[in-house]
């Protein structure tokens, strides 16, 4: 008797679990990721090798880590164009500290990450105290950061960095690169912060409506400060991983990173208007960008097309975002029926 009673409820709960899996906002991203992966697996033998998989994972770390920060910024309804500048400054000056001032590696790494955080705080101060548009602030500050970097290093390349410094960028824990572990740990930490802490809830509230958040007692300024500081910290970390990976600090090392980071974040389901986003989504978005980049290399497509492809993907991602938010519907493109 009791068995007959529990049976339908079990299937019902299974069904609802399945439903919630497909209703899960990130499931579309996951589907795209799987599709891209399966296609590449089928098409290219070079793609299937273990080495190539590790390469993809390694390559996605920098974009993903920067995109985590961007996700928090976007959820709050902000914008950040200075991440690449911060990453370059942190990577260059920490490399400089090791090579020219003979700092121990751990101290230089810490210095780079803190420098990134400091840059983020500077962004935050300008944005909240001076009430300037985030896009303009971060455009201006990114040239300030690049300017400081050029001024300090005179455009030199710092090579032959010690193994201790390179640990984050190129060492492995068993078969798994350290940077990949860092990426996953960071994703977990930030996701916990977003969904379990008061600060995280405030970030979402801010993105939904700044005014409502203010009226509800959210300390908008303090939250903004936290958000852009996180953006700075992760960019500093990304810069160190970047220079650790090639064991050198180069002035233009982060030059092409802005667009893939934006693309990864949007593809991962973060709304540009704020209020929605998750680390899992961004992680998958970064994986999609990495597979795409890898595909261009593995399939021997013209390497110069890479940047153009990233741009097209970004346009498609924004389109997806607009449809998702119902800012754009198919009816809008039918003639004569746009508005009653």
């Amino acid at each position, binding site marked *: 008797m009791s068995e007959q009673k529990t049976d339908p409820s079990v299937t019902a709960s299974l069904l609802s679990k399945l439903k919630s899996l497909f209703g899960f906002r990130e499931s579309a991203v996951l589907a795209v990721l799987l599709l891209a992966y399966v296609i590449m697996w089928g098409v290219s033998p070079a793609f299937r090798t273990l080495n190539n998989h590790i390469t993809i994972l390694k390559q996605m770390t920098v974009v993903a880590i920067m995109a985590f920060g961007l996700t928090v910024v976007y959820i709050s309804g902000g*914008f950040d164009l200075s991440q690449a500048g911060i990453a370059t400054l942190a990577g260059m000056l920490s490399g400089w500290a090791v090579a020219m001032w003979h700092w121990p590696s751990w101290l230089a790494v810490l210095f780079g990450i803190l420098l990134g955080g400091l840059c983020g705080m500077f962004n935050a101060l300008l944005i909240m*105290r001076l009430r300037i548009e985030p896009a303009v602030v971060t455009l201006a500050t990114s040239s*300030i950061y690049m300017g400081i970097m050029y001024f300090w290093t005179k455009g030199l390349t710092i090579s032959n960095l010690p193994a201790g410094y390179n640990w984050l960028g190129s060492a492995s824990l068993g078969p798994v690169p350290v940077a990949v572990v860092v990426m996953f740990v960071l994703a977990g930490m930030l996701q916990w912060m977003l969904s379990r802490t008061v600060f995280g809830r405030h970030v979402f509230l801010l993105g939904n409506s700044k005014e409502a958040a203010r009226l509800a007692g959210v300390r908008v300024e303090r939250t903004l400060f936290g958000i852009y500081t996180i953006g700075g910290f992760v960019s500093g970390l990304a810069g160190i991983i970047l220079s650790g990976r090639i064991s050198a600090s180069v002035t233009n090392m982060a030059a092409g990173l802005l667009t893939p980071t934006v693309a990864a974040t949007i593809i991962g389901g973060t709304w540009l208007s704020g209020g929605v986003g998750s680390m899992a989504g961004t992680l998958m978005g970064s994986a999609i960008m990495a597979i795409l980049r890898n595909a261009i290399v593995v399939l021997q497509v013209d390497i110069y097309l890479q940047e153009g492809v990233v741009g097209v993907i*970004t346009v498609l991602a*924004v389109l997806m975002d607009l449809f998702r938010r119902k800012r754009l519907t198919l009816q809008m493109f039918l003639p004569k029926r746009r508005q009653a």
Partner: protein
Amino acid sequence: MAVTTGGRSTSKPPRSAWRRFLGMRESGVFLVLASMYVAMWFVSPVFRARFNQVSILSQMAVFAVLAIGQTMVIVSGGFDLSQGPIAALAGMLGGLAIKNWGWSPLAGIGFGLAIGLACGVFNGLIITRLQFEPVVATLAASSIYSGIMYSMTKGNTVVELPPQFTWLGSGDLGPLPAGVVVMFALYALMQFVLTTSEFGRHVFLIGSNKEAARLAGINVERTQFGIFLTSALVASLGGIMLAGRISAAQPQMGAGLMLPTVAAAIVGGTWLTGGVGSMFGTLMGAAIMAVLKNAIVVLRVNIYLQEFVVGVVVVLAVVIDQVRRGNLSLSLLRRRA
């Protein structure tokens, strides 16, 4: 909110010329420019040299031409991040058409401008038809344009461009460099368009309040399309001028154009929130940036500081802008949240 730039004192009793000058929004910018210029004139003999004056003007011409478009975009409440890549794409492909495909120099210039036009149509379409945020749209489009540029040129520099092609950048028209004459002519033309035409009035109205403009029966989409088209077109012209000035088309040449362009517009008194700005102000803003850049070179300040200084100037200009508009008072800076 001021919608047009002039005509503010028409209803008031006549005042002295000096009073009228101080009442103009651009007077502050003008005073900054004049005092910088006078200070540099006294401090540095190199600055006074005729060739240096000409070089300031011709350096300024390139980003000042781009700033025409950026000013219109910012006045309408948007932001264009794609001007640099469009300039590079137009300059590169114009040069490539001449050197590799055997086109005539004039056709090369036409091709470059046509590319600018095409980029403008693309920007305009995704912003007006697909409702992209201008910042995001132009960021993504930038990537596409540089991608096209790199895949067509393989990152090579196009050198030995014919003199007819480089005339815009390094030729002379009477006593002045041709590019400078083009710059002044374009500024006069666009100031006229902005202040007298219906399109110009719509640009300001959209920037002041988009919804109100829509309700007033203005075709917001068409106006925005025109704005981004103009912005891309002047960007391609700037790219051709730049390639002409260094008499070679380099893939990276658009990279440094973005910031001085935005700086010129903001220093020149364009409000970042839209609705206010003038060509005259931007021209002086561009001159300030050019004198500043020149001062760094002439006074032998560390050349690597140049980018830093430009960034700081942009921040300062925005702060001054905010204070002037009353959005920011000194007490606000001190108050804790």
